[in-house]
């Protein structure tokens, strides 16, 4: 994990600029929603307070859950570097998971600072959850969301076992995530039919569901989504395992 942090600091300027970009991204969304509320008190079911809080929370969760180092796995497969890890498959998994944690921890650290600065500068009204039960559920949904995001991203990297074009699917995935995971707007403002359709995909469970839990605490309406999220994480686990095993067989057969 230490190595992971050092690696990141080696690319100081890059890293710094990336953080700056994150801040500006947040500013964009913040101002978008603030201006919506200048003329009205409620946007569908959200007050300004709730929505702004939603944005900050989603930003935090984004850096914790959506940002991932699994992208490197794709590059490793294409370059052949992954062979070094293949001798010990179990520790490869351990390696990428711990690298993941290092990365997430680092990002979280900086995102908290950035959000703190923004709160101090912009002074928005934010909502803090009181219910301790909600926090417990928050942690559970975050873990599930993290698992889902991790496996989906990993599978995207595994495409490298069969094709050189790993950039395109990942890019399209990021477009989908940007809109459908709720980074831009809370998903339940969408029309009911669209929202229900979306609940069948893994997207809402990565960062949207935990945010909802933070904002509203536990409610009966969340039972089904939580259930689906658990199903997705199990399904993705097995899918990832299968893809990995097939991919490795295919890969080694080419004798790189």
């Amino acid at each position, binding site marked *: 994990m230490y190595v992971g942090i050092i690696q990141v600091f080696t690319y100081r300027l890059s890293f*710094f600029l990336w953080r700056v970009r994150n801040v500006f991204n947040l500013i964009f969304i913040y101002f978008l929603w603030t201006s919506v509320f200048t003329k009205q008190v409620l946007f569908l079911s959200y007050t300004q307070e709730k929505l702004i809080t939603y944005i900050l929370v989603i930003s935090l969760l984004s850096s914790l859950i959506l940002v991932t180092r699994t992208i490197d796995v794709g590059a490793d497969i294409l370059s052949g570097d992954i062979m070094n890890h293949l001798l010990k498959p179990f520790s490869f998994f351990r390696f990428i998971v711990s690298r993941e944690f290092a990365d997430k921890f680092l990002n979280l650290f900086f995102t908290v600072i950035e959000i703190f600065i923004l709160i101090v500068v912009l002074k928005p009204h934010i909502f803090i959850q009181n219910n301790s039960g909600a926090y417990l559920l928050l942690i559970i949904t975050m873990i599930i969301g993290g698992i889902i995001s991790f496996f989906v991203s990993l599978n995207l990297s595994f495409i490298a076992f069969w094709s050189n074009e790993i950039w395109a699917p990942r890019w399209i995935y990021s477009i989908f995530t940007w809109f459908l995971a709720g980074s831009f707007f809370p998903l339940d403002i969408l029309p009911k039919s669209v929202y229900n359709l979306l609940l069948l995909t893994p997207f809402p469970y990565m960062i949207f569901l935990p945010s909802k839990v933070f904002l509203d605490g536990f409610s009966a309406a969340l039972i089904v989504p939580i259930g689906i999220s658990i199903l997705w994480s199990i399904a993705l686990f097995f899918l990832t395992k299968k893809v990995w095993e097939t991919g490795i067989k295919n890969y080694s057969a080419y004798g790189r």
Partner: protein
Amino acid sequence: MISIKGLTKTYRIPQRTKNLFKDIFFRTYKEKKAIENVSLTIDGNELVGFIGPNGAGKTTTLKILSGILYPTSGYVNVFGFTPFEKKREFLRQIAFIMGHKNQLLWELPATDSFRLNKEIYEVDDKTYKITLDELTELLDAENLIHQPVKTLSLGQRMRVELIAALLHRPKILFLDEPTIGLDIFAQTTIIDFIKEYQERYKSTIILTSHYMQDVERLAKRLIMINHGKIIFDGLLRNLVNTYSQQKLINITLLKPLSKEFEPPEKIRIHYQFPQLQITTHKENIVGVLAYMLKKVEFVDVTIEDEPLEDVIKKMFVHH
């Protein structure tokens, strides 16, 4: 043609301290003089070898002469132009070829790059055809120029790069390590080509290389540079005559040396039957030779100059 007086180039190198904060916001720089107070003149139709260890300043000099780098101080004049101004008339008459570096369009056949260079250098159709045919023939590249550059081997790529760089018949060629990374056959091809090219087109060629064979084969004039300063500028053969005090005597023995054999004084000996190599000072040759011829039975004797490489190495150590 090329005139440099008092040329200096200083680089600013950022210093890495352990302090991360300082590194981002308060960077300190160290100054490194890549070349210092260099002066030289090169006329037309010359083939100059420019040698020095890594970081000696040869590439920097070449890049200043071709206008890529901006001199810190000093006077540079090529064909009456100031290179850094990169005037079109100036750039049309030079070519800069770096070994291992690619100027050709990677995914397309070399002919596309040639076409592009034709437009860039404003070569008319007739001259273009003649030059292209000549160069392709000289480099034996007829079947290489129609396939994507990325499919060529390093040696093949170098040949095609040379064609692209010479289509406009530049008056000056700057060659920076043109044979680096090539196998011995490819190296020979390139070096032979350069020699042939210079004789045919009478251009001025300035060549840097690590490989002594390249320099020995091509250059009559040698410029040695170390730590940014010129330590020798003259004819190759003068280098050995002036600076080398050693001669080598190679004796091919008929019979192995007996155990009682006593070598003469003040020599270095390298013995692996049947070859006996004696290195000795020029003045001692007659004495040593006379001594040896009396003591051993031999099949062949040759006397050689100290290898150029050794002379050069010694000079670099000295300066």
